[in-house]
């Protein structure tokens, strides 16, 4: 089954600075269940890339396996994409990024893909500070295999059969902060206002950016008692609204309450965050961990940009690789030629 969207474009559709319409950032028609949170995340990615004036072919999309990991087919059809194996997207993304550091890497994963089978690779891609945006579409269950519990399911949350989960959950955002992630955001697929600027900020961040996005599975884990349902999220979400101001653009406020904090990104863009709490320092790991913990204790889920380290060494800095992409190097640059081999042979006699 292949769904191809009609190529018709509305003549009055707004264009971005590249002269592209939003439609140019879309993908094939989604085959997910109607109302699946993942489709909203795809829509937010489309908006973010359109508004950021990203050339679609300069993006590489990568994913593992799951309903969430299918979604790269539903946005940016002008980008190359690699739907790899379950839980192993981080390694494929790492190799791809090593080969060509000039592309924008967007990885899409699920909570099963990242927190269970792929937890090892996830932890290591965080450690390596790979320059990529890593979005976990977190629904607390395995959607594609029909709703089994995932490792992010909260203790006490019932599953589709009514069984209460007694295992303790893995909080990917907190884990990432602990092990050295340089950008960690949490959001909700139902909050486009917050999600779009967060995605923009994540893409602009130089280094590894995690977005843990609660994205309800309407088919298997959207009952009202589930902590990953729309209803629960709407009640528990304690959002810190986010604005993203691209470089060289005037900052205009959209929200008017709470304590604001502005973070200037590596590329000159600015993220403006409206914090719930003035003492919270999003550039301090301990403070970020305490804030999420504080809200969690009250049964709330803090969303927004949780932690950022503005200047850090991404993997290429650590390795000291050439500025030019490795995949653009020619035989002349790479092959030592027969004369060097003569000297090798001579040294082995």
């Amino acid at each position, binding site marked *: *089954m*292949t769904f191809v969207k009609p190529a018709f474009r509305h003549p009055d559709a707004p264009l971005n600075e590249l002269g592209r319409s939003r439609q140019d950032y879309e993908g*094939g028609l989604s085959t997910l269940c109607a109302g699946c949170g993942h489709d909203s995340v795809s829509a937010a990615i489309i908006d973010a890339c359109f508004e950021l004036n990203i*050339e*679609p*072919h*300069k993006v*590489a999309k*990568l994913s593992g396996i799951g309903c969430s990991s299918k979604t790269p*087919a539903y946005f940016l*059809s*002008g*980008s*190359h*994409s*690699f*739907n*790899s*194996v379950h839980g*192993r997207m*981080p*390694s*494929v*993304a*790492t*190799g*791809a*990024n*090593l*080969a*060509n550091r*000039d*592309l924008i890497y967007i990885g899409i994963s699920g909570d099963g893909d990242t927190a269970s089978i792929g937890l*090892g*690779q996830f*932890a*290591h891609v965080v450690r*390596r500070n790979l320059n990529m945006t890593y979005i976990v579409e977190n629904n607390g269950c395995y959607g594609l295999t029909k709703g089994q519990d995932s490792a992010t399911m909260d203790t006490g949350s019932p599953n589709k059969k009514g069984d209460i989960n007694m295992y303790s959950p893995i909080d990917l955002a907190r884990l990432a902060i602990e092990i050295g992630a340089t950008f960690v955001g949490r959001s909700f697929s139902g909050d486009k206002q917050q999600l779009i600027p967060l995605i923009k900020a994540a893409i602009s961040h130089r280094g590894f950016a995690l977005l843990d996005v609660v994205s309800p599975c309407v088919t298997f884990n959207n009952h009202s008692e589930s902590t990953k349902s729309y209803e629960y999220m709407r009640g528990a979400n304690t959002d810190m609204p986010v604005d993203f101001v691209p470089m060289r653009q005037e900052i205009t406020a959209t929200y008017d309450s709470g304590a604001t904090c502005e973070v200037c990104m590596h590329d000159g863009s600015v993220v403006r965050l409206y914090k719930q709490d003035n003492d919270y320092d999003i550039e301090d790991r301990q403070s970020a961990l305490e804030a999420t913990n504080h809200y969690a204790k009250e049964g709330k889920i803090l969303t927004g940009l949780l932690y950022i380290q503005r200047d850090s060494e991404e993997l*290429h800095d650590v*390795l*000291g*690789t*050439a*500025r030019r992409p*490795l*995949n653009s*190097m020619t*035989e002349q*640059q*790479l*092959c*030592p*030629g*027969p004369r*060097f*081999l003569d000297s*090798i*042979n001579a040294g*082995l*006699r």
Partner: protein
Amino acid sequence: MQAKQSVNDFVIKFANVNGTGSASANSMFAKAIFRMGIPVSPRNIFPSNIQGMPTWYEVRVSQDGYLGRRGGIDIMVCVNPQSIKRDVAEVESGGYFIYDSTKPLDLRLIREDVNYFGIPFTDICLREYTDARQRLLFKNVIYVGALSALLNIDFNVLKDLVADQFKGKEKLITPNIYALELGYQYAVTHFECPIGIHLERGHKLAKHIEDFDNILMDGNTAAALGAVYAGATVAAWYPITPSTSVVDAFDKYCRRLRIDPGTGKKNYAIIQAEDELSALGMVIGANWNGARAFTATSGPGVSLMSEFLGLAYFAEVPTVLIDVQRAGPSTGMPTRTQQSDVLMAAYASHGDTKHVLLFPATPAECFSMTVEAFDLAERLQTPIIIMSDLDLGMNEWMSPPLEFDGDFKYDRGKVLSAADLDGMEERFGRYKDVDGDGITYRTYPGVHPDKGAYFTRGTSRDEYAAYTEDGDEYVRNMDRLLRKFETAKSLVPEPKIKQSEMETRYGAVFFGTTASPAYEAIEILEKEGIDLDTLRIRSFPFNHEVEQFIREHDRIFVIEQNRDGQMRRLLLNETSVPAKEKLIPILEYNGLPVTARKIAGMIRNYVTHGNVTPLTRRSATEEISA
């Protein structure tokens, strides 16, 4: 008692304690013989341990240029009391036993038929050195010095080697030469030197050895150089014996050759991954994105890579994997050699998968086949697995020099550039078999603003890379992959065939490190009147020469180093060989490189006691009847 006598033809074994620095002294011993122009093949037989366990080093010296293990020990140099009992027992009748005589030898260790040479190594060290570490290290150098007198090694050659070894640390040269002299002097004053088995320069070498200006090198270093020459820019790996030194050597050469002199930046990236799954994932990601990337591992790693190998096969991503085989299953014997990953590698992963395998037999081939593997991977857009083993990878082999043609150009396969895409009238179909060879065109990400993007996936897809569960589409694609595998047959290295001088209906098939002892065994048998044509397999899929060889012989011995006859099974599976009985398994799987005597013995046994008509040659039969 008869003492063995021979010139330039013997097997000597050193019994050491692991972690005492013996390996470098032993390798200096072997290299000295090599520099004297006498064929030599050293083998490190080591335990999976860092310090304290018994370890051995076996050196074959062979005027005729036989580089495989012969079997049997003529001279034992024992400096490890832990293993002395079995070391004495291993010496062949008439052989020599050189030992540390600081303490008198236990009378139960004295054999009538062995010649004993006691040298008080420990005593000499205690007298000469005060530092404990020096006492340990110089003991090794002292016995090399003693051997120099006993076996007639050119002392100047040893001195040069010491100078080479300590280039940059010159103050270590004099003490090392002094230690060599201590051993040398002890031997000349206490024994009649040289002994019955010894070395002499200037003898005529066997033709196949003489043809080359040989080098002495290990296969892993050669493979690493191959990757450098092939333009590999990304290596991802997870440490495992015996493959670790591949990436270590790649790193070493890249530091020398791939750092931009202007910026100091690296034109390569090496990642020590969190496991082998990740290592191969990185390799696949990098190759997908247009860089040449590889990994090196051993059996346990290949097991873990299995799922990813299937993805690379099905999604058609070039991948180069070097498998330095060791004894399995499971952790098996991690520091022992085997050729037991053949079937796993050929069919790695679930579903219908087959992979292209290359089987190097010498360091020169480790180099050339690794260079070739990158071209093959990109031309065929599939994983290429280089099947080396511990014996080849970690031991130094006398080998023809490494060769690289200055006019050689990388073949990056069917990749469409932006200009190609602009010039295309038809729609780009990533999996469309335009040329009929099963190989389709690919594009690199980011290359064109509007054309050529496609979706890479492990799920079934149509010719335009769109997801499909249509059975006919799936079958079409799977059949195309088979067509591609057929194309591979014409691209992979052809086998090496040697016809026996006498016409024979019997053949022997082998590959990799089994080749050296197998060729020697065939010559042993030939002298006994048993003639065999030989075929050395160098790749899978098997090309038509392999088919033909099997067709043209009535009985074929398949010689390999594993329990289940894996290559034999692969041949039964993948060629049109009519009957199982035609292929006779000749197997060794004790973890040590198979010996020529063992192979000859097994074939002889089969011929004389088995259900095969004796393979005696016609002329020999006539002689006997005359």
